[in-house]
């Protein structure tokens, strides 16, 4: 960045400082958090509000490609008595993770479970039609990891205030699920 632009040192490790664009890094975190949150939230609401109710069964039985290395696993999932639970976990998971990311609450917790969900979606989408290894789900995982590493909930997010609570001050490890 140009010398005229204000820069902010961030400590990495012990002695290293790096410069980031102060004007853009905060907004960038916010934009990423809001957009991916909206993407999750809408995908969740789309399922929650689906007329006649939504179930993963159709996808698991028909849309997983025959060459998928985990066909049996997904078929077992579709026919298991736990399917209603899986459906609810999908709908509630996407919706709540989306909400959490949008308002910036429990961002690391949300990013972690969002990544687990994306991991399953990615497994179910193998073999990828137009790509090797990286699909949009993998990029989402990288993006969620990024949001967690930077503690994106503390920039214009609820986690900024949650972390000030006395309760969190007393139990600092809670920050692993906040930020």
């Amino acid at each position, binding site marked *: 960045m*140009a010398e005229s632009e204000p820069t902010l040192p*961030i400590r990495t490790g012990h002695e290293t400082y790096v410069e980031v664009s102060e004007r853009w890094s905060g907004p960038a*975190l916010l934009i990423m958090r809001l*957009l991916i949150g909206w993407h999750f939230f*809408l995908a969740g609401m789309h399922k929650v509000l689906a007329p006649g109710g939504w179930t993963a069964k159709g996808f698991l039985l028909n849309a997983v490609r025959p060459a998928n290395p985990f066909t049996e696993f997904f078929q077992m999932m579709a026919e298991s008595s736990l399917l209603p639970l899986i459906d609810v976990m999908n709908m509630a998971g996407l919706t709540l993770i989306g909400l959490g990311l949008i308002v910036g609450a429990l961002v690391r917790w949300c990013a972690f479970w969002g990544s687990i969900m994306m991991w399953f979606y990615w497994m179910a989408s193998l073999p990828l039609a137009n790509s*090797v290894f990286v699909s949009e789900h993998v990029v989402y995982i990288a993006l969620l990891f*990024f949001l967690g*590493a930077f503690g994106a909930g503390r*920039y214009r997010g609820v986690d900024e205030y949650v972390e000030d609570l006395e309760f969190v001050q007393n139990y600092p490890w809670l920050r692993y699920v906040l930020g």
Partner: protein
Amino acid sequence: MGATEADSERYQVSASWFGPSLVILRVLMGWHFLYAGLTKVLNPGWSSRGFLLNAVPEGNPIPGFWPYLANNWYCILDPMNAWGLTLIGIALIVGAFVRWSAFWGSVMMLFYWAAALPLANSYVIDDHIIYIAALFGLGAFGAGRYYGLDEYIEQLSIVEDYPRLRYLLG
């Protein structure tokens, strides 16, 4: 990250994870672009015409634009697509000219997004928009300077002499 001294003092990032998270996002994003580009470059039969003429969903807000592009501009558009994706992918993977690449990658994704409207299962946001956000993040944080070539390019005397070049690097 805030505008004030007080904000920036209390702002902490995970010291052990934020560098790796930048690299991971940059390399994965780059691989996604590179592979999409290479499959087009290496496929002599590939052209954007088929997509533009047949695959743009019904109800697209600019339906006349895509056939216009396909019929008049495909000889420029096809190499720009194939090589654009490939070069942006390589640049992101090695971390060279990250901001420049992120900018043009975003422009491409904006076109892809516009051609995908109306979205089947979403509203406004699809994977292309998330990629734009990710590219913006990579540019804002200057992701090419972590284990990337931009770290060294920025030390060249030409960059020291013309600091504005950093808007393309980082």
